[in-house]
């Protein structure tokens, strides 16, 4: 019988205590903020969207290798010696044309493993977190500054240089050993 009354009393008492807690929250300041109008101020280390500063990128492919999900694709073309590609901010001379630098941000897992190995710190994570798209293809960001034609032109340019260098080496090989001149002569 005593347990019976205790149960009743406990039931009523704990329910009233619980109600006191909830009613006390009725007048406490609210915690939620109204998102589109009021925005949370992100800390400066926030890791959201990737950004690559192409002037500093020397096409060394370190970030593509460090990425666990392989969402960075880089294609580079060697520069013909005559060309001048300018220097990165910390003074290193660039030697590669970066014809293709794509980051598929849909695959990116925001682990920032690509930021650390970059020698010229040209890839980092900004605090932009509103970048949703309607089509998945739009999430593939093309950072390379060369237009497709320029890229094509650079490739052709390099192949022409390559072929010309090969011919020079062949000619030079011919000059170095005269007796094999006849067979190399009728070769080209």
């Amino acid at each position, binding site marked *: 019988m005593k347990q019976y009354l205790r*149960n*009743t009393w406990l039931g009523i008492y704990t*329910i009233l205590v*619980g*109600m006191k*807690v*909830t*009613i006390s*929250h*009725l007048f*406490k300041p*609210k*915690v*939620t903020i*109204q998102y589109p109008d009021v925005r949370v101020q992100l800390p400066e280390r926030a890791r959201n969207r990737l950004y690559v500063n192409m002037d500093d990128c020397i096409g060394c492919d370190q970030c593509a290798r460090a990425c666990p999900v392989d969402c960075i694709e880089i294609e580079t073309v060697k520069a013909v010696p005559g060309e001048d590609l300018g220097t990165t901010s910390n003074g290193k001379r660039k030697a590669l044309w970066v014809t293709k630098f794509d980051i598929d941000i849909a695959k990116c897992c925001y682990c920032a493993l690509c930021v650390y190995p970059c020698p010229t710190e040209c890839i980092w994570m900004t605090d932009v977190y509103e970048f949703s798209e309607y089509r998945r293809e739009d999430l593939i960001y093309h950072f390379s500054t060369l237009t497709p034609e320029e890229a094509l032109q650079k490739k052709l340019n390099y192949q022409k240089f390559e072929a010309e260098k090969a011919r020079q080496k062949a000619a030079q090989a011919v000059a170095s050993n005269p007796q094999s001149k006849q067979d190399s002569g009728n070769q080209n």
Partner: protein
Amino acid sequence: MISDYLAEFFGNKYLGYLVSAALPLFMWILPYALYAVYAERKVSAFMQDRIGPNRVGPKGLFQTIADILKLIQKEDIVPASADKLLFVTAPYVIFAGTFAAFAALPFSSVYIGSNIDLGVFYIMAVSSFSVIGILMAGWAGNNKYSLYGAMRSVAQIVSYEVPALLALVTAIMVIGSLNLNEISQMQTSRFWNWWIFGGPVDGIQKFLYIFPMIVAFLIFFIASLAEVNRTPFDIPEAESELVAGFHTEYTGMKFAMFFLAEYGNMFVVSAISVSIFFGGWQSPFGYLGNSIGINWLIPVEQVFWFLFKGALLVLIQMWLRWTLPRLRVDQLMSLCWKYLTPYAFINLVIVGIITLIK
């Protein structure tokens, strides 16, 4: 009462009946249901340190209207293997049970649907009518979860009728009449004359009544929570176990009808306890109309006070919902049969003895 007054007004008797039946629905139930849903979301938000709907309209007032519009244009799916007739009529049966109870509720001394002498008896009979609707909904959805929900709600509502009626019987034994209008009239307009504080009786009996009447009110309030499926008794549509209980398969307007029925039922139940225990349409501090002499103002004030007290009790029900966890089915039954009913009987006996002393 109101229907024959309207009958002369419109000349045609049936038109009068129709309008008098439609009056509470459009004047009170629909706007009340809209803003009860809004109030619940706001109250729950404020209790949980958040802000709740504030985008649609000023301070989010049109939120429920937006919800209703959304529900209207939603596709009204009827599951393939559902029992079509039962499935379609179930929500309306539940709402009918709730709406029928409005007939005997005394909104003010002038306005009452039908001033029948068995007001309390009629309301309790009609409000247990919605159990059939829930069973129909649960069975027709042909879904295991809704079947469970329906089975549980039948057991719950039927078994909680007993303590609810016992609590009312103790109150009626003190009051003496079943006619709700009379009950409200007897509680003259000072709040210490309300039945919960012993009623207009004077002398030692008034103080003896106070405690049993408060216990009777508490038992009736808890039992009515169970009848309306509100926490801590919302087992039929326990989201964490039965997904959504008996209305799992419902979409579109039928789902809105369930909501309307639930909030309507909440108001009916709190209206009954208001008119029996808290002095129906009596105002706690006398009428403004008397003091400044405009006597047509008094019925308006009475309607205001009746709705105000009803809404207050509905708010308490909402407050409970966001505080308490849910009981299990067998604990629910044990609470009803092992705790509420014995206390209701003891209370009945005590009040019986007190009435003999007079």
